[in-house]
Structures are given as structure tokens and as C-alpha cells.
């Protein structure tokens, strides 16, 4: 078999690489950082050179990525002495965008997003129960409280995402952590919309607490079950909201 004559499996493996260029990958990283609230509205991005160095790509690739982000309306670039690229995500605008996104997505897409989260978060919870570091309880308990007490979508999103990502970190898995970051960047903004669209934050915080209790007890099966139940609740919420929005639209 030669590489030239693509076979079904080979083309499946190669597809993501041929379709997703390096610029897309860079743009996605920056989009994730914005979605997770790691950089806020008005923040200045590092210079083209610095970004290229940090990410290990050519300057041209960064330039292409920034053009993609500009096109998506996520950054704006100013010229001159105080110029540079600035994050542009006014809360209201991005929430309107997410509502439109939730309305546009098909329930089959939401289900599939949930399937991936089920795999990643369920496994992270299980492994965290087996591998959790001693100080995990303190840190994650604080994040449970942060979610319970959060005011507004931005705080809710940050507290929720950090709990999910910290659990993957506690699982001691770099790959699971990377997947968790990507998933939270995608899910968080869809989920934590302003009232009345967001989920019941107290209920979600309580579910986080139940997962944490199982993790800290070293109960791997219980932690996975609680994490999976949480993901199912999250997908149900998204599908229900999607159907309502589709009706209104």
C-alpha cells in the first residue's frame, strides 16, 4: 500500500492534519484563552514575535492566525506607537453570539460534544480519585464555592471550567488536561449564558461537590458515575435550551 492511494482509515487519520492548518491551530489556542477568561476584554495580546516564539511557529503563521481572529471579531489591531492586537469580547456581544450559536447547533452536535465530555471528564474523575494529590480538597472546595457564589456568566464560566480542568490536572494526565481545556472553551460559553438561559448554578455546584467527595474518598467508580451524571445534566440543559431557542427563532 502506498500513501498515495488513500484507504478509508488512512484518509480518516490524515484528514484533520490536512484540513487544519497551523494558523487555525494557533487561532484556536488564542480563542480558547479568550473563552476561558484567561485574557479579558481590552487586554493586549503579546507581539507577533513573542507569540511566534512562545508557540514555536513562524511569524507568518501568527499573522495568519491574527487575521482569522480579526475576521471572527475576537480581536482588533491598532497601528502606531501604542498599537498591537487587543481582545474584543464585550460581554453583551459575545453572549448574543453564543445564544445564536446555541440556536444554530443541531441537537446531534450537542449530543456529540457531550459524548466527548463524558469520555474526558468521566475518566478524569476516575483517575483523579486514584491519583489525587493531598492538597486537592482545599483547592477544589474553593472552586465549588466560587461556582455557587458566582455572580454573572463570566464568573460562573471561569469557576466551572477551572473545576473541570483541575480535575484533569489531578488525574496527572497532560493529554486529558489539554482535552479538558479545549472542551471547556467550547462548552463553557454555550452553557453559562445570562438568565434565564444558564443552568441552575446551585445544582451544578452541588454536583461538583458530589464528584469531589467521591474523588477525595478515593472512590473511582463513584467519581466517574457522579461526573457522568453531571455531564448528562449539562447536555440535557443545552438540548432543552436549543429547542426553545429554535422555537422562538
Amino acid at each position, binding site marked *: 500500500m502506498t500513501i498515495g492511494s*488513500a*484507504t*478509508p482509515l488512512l*484518509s480518516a487519520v490524515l484528514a484533520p492534519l490536512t484540513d487544519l492548518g497551523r494558523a487555525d491551530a494557533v487561532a484556536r489556542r488564542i480563542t480558547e484563552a479568550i473563552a476561558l477568561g484567561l485574557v479579558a476584554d481590552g487586554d493586549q495580546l503579546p507581539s507577533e514575535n513573542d507569540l511566534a516564539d512562545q508557540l514555536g511557529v513562524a511569524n507568518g503563521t501568527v499573522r495568519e492566525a491574527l487575521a482569522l481572529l480579526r475576521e471572527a471579531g475576537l480581536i482588533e489591531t491598532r497601528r502606531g506607537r501604542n498599537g498591537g492586537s487587543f481582545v474584543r469580547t464585550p460581554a453583551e456581544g459575545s453572549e448574543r453570539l453564543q445564544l445564536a450559536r446555541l440556536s444554530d447547533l443541531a*441537537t446531534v*452536535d450537542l*449530543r456529540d460534544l457531550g459524548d466527548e465530555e463524558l469520555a474526558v471528564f468521566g475518566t478524569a474523575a476516575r483517575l483523579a480519585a486514584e491519583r489525587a494529590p493531598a492538597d486537592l480538597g482545599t483547592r477544589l472546595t474553593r472552586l465549588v464555592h466560587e461556582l455557587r457564589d458566582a455572580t454573572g456568566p463570566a464568573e460562573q464560566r471561569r469557576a466551572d471550567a477551572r473545576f473541570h480542568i483541575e480535575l484533569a490536572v489531578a488525574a496527572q494526565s497532560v493529554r486529558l488536561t489539554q482535552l479538558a481545556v479545549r472542551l471547556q472553551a467550547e462548552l463553557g460559553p454555550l452553557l453559562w449564558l445570562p438568565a434565564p438561559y444558564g443552568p441552575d448554578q446551585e445544582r451544578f455546584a452541588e454536583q461538583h461537590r458530589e464528584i469531589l467527595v467521591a474523588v477525595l474518598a478515593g472512590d473511582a467508580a463513584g467519581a466517574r458515575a457522579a461526573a457522568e451524571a453531571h455531564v448528562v445534566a449539562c447536555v440535557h440543559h443545552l438540548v432543552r435550551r436549543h429547542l426553545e431557542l*429554535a422555537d422562538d427563532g
Partner: protein
Amino acid sequence: MTSTFSPALPAVLPVALPDALDRLAVERCARRIAAAVESVLAELDGLRAAAADCWSRAAAAGRRPAAAELAAVHGAVSELLAGTGSRWFGCGAVAAPGALADAELHVEWWYRGARGAGERRLRLALDPADAEFYDYRVLPWFARPRDEGRPVVAGPHVDLLCADRYVLCCARPVVVPGAGFVGVAAGDVPLAALERLLVPALRALPGEAALLDGEGRVLAATTPALPVGSLARGLLADPAVGRGAVPSEAVDWTVVGGRGDLFV
């Protein structure tokens, strides 16, 4: 929405609608879904005609076309893939064994590139000796049009060939006078794209409803309790649940529910 019964309906409907009225509503929904299926299949008209042309021209000259001649369908393929708001992810013509002069099997298939990068031609291993031999003769989107002479909407399945999509394959037989069945004209539609047609029909029913395929797999639903792609075979046999077969020869689909909640 008009109903022959509407003048007789009280202003406030009783909690339990009469069974006959329920059945009518579910049947109306099933007809709406059948119409959606037919309209999607009708979009393959140009592609089917272009493929039939290849064989008709050759037949008129008393020969079978060569595989290269099937490239003539590319115009119709482009029209489908590039049309505004196109729901098609990939499409093409697939030859019946022996229908071409110089190839036992042949797939003339194109799919959409990422971010409007144009179309790409699909290359497949069609040599039975190849470990990755793609034997489309046994796949439902080819076998059913061949064996039953009717269009088919097969799937959904995760498509490993073109892209990471969850698709339905829509296929119509290509039949040419003098040559008989020479292949299919077909295309892949992501289920997500079809959902826009299916869910509004289900939402028009007063209660929770779902659309199931022949084996009870959920194609669309108005409740998160029935995730798309999961199996809900029980609903196909549940006497407490309303049912309406989708009246289209291309599918073996059933609308279930329509009154109250599907799961109490």
C-alpha cells in the same frame, strides 16, 4: 395549520385529546417528514441525469462508457456542493459492477474541503486484493437501489471516508434504457443539516416526539431524554405511544409520541 376538525374544537382543549385526533396529528407530522425526505432526494435530480447521460450516450454508440467519462458528472456535483446553503457534504456517481468498459468498480465522488477550500476528489481502494478494499456492493445505499429499484436514505453513520461527520447517505438508482441499472447517484448529508427540517415537524406536535429509523435509532427528538443516535427500540413497540410511519419509499422511519411526555 388547518384541520378539518378545527371548527368543532372547544376553545380550551381537554387534557386528553381524542385518539383519532392524535393519530391525525402524528400522521400529518409523518407526511411533513416524508415531504422533507423527498425534497432532499429531488436535489439529486441533476446528478442522476448527468450520470444517466454518460451511459445513454455510450449505449447509443453500442458500447459501455469508460470510467474517465464519468468525470462528466462533475458539473452537477459542483452545483450541489457549492450551492448557497448547501446541505451536501459529498456526492457523486457510483458504478454498478460491469457497467463500465474498463473498470469493474468505480466511484466518482467529490467532497467539500475545509473552510471553502473547494472540492476534493475521493480516492478509494477498489481492488478486492487490497487490505482496505472498499466493497460498496454490500452497502445499503448501493444494494437497496440496485435490488429494489428505489431511492434510499441510509444511515446515520460516522463517515470515516471524507471527514469526521455523522451523515445520512441519500442515493437514487440510475437506470438507462437498454442498459438497465448502471449505478447510483448519491450524496452525504450531515444529520445536523437535516435536523433543521425534522425537528420543526416534530415540534408541531403537542407532546414530546421522536423520529426513529427501522432499528429504533433516534434521528431527531424534541426531548433531551432521547439523544440523537441512541437506540430506543422499545418505543417502536410500546402500546402507550402514538406512532406514524413516514410515507416515503426511501425510508423506514417512524414518528413516535406526540401526546404528553414520552417517558413518565
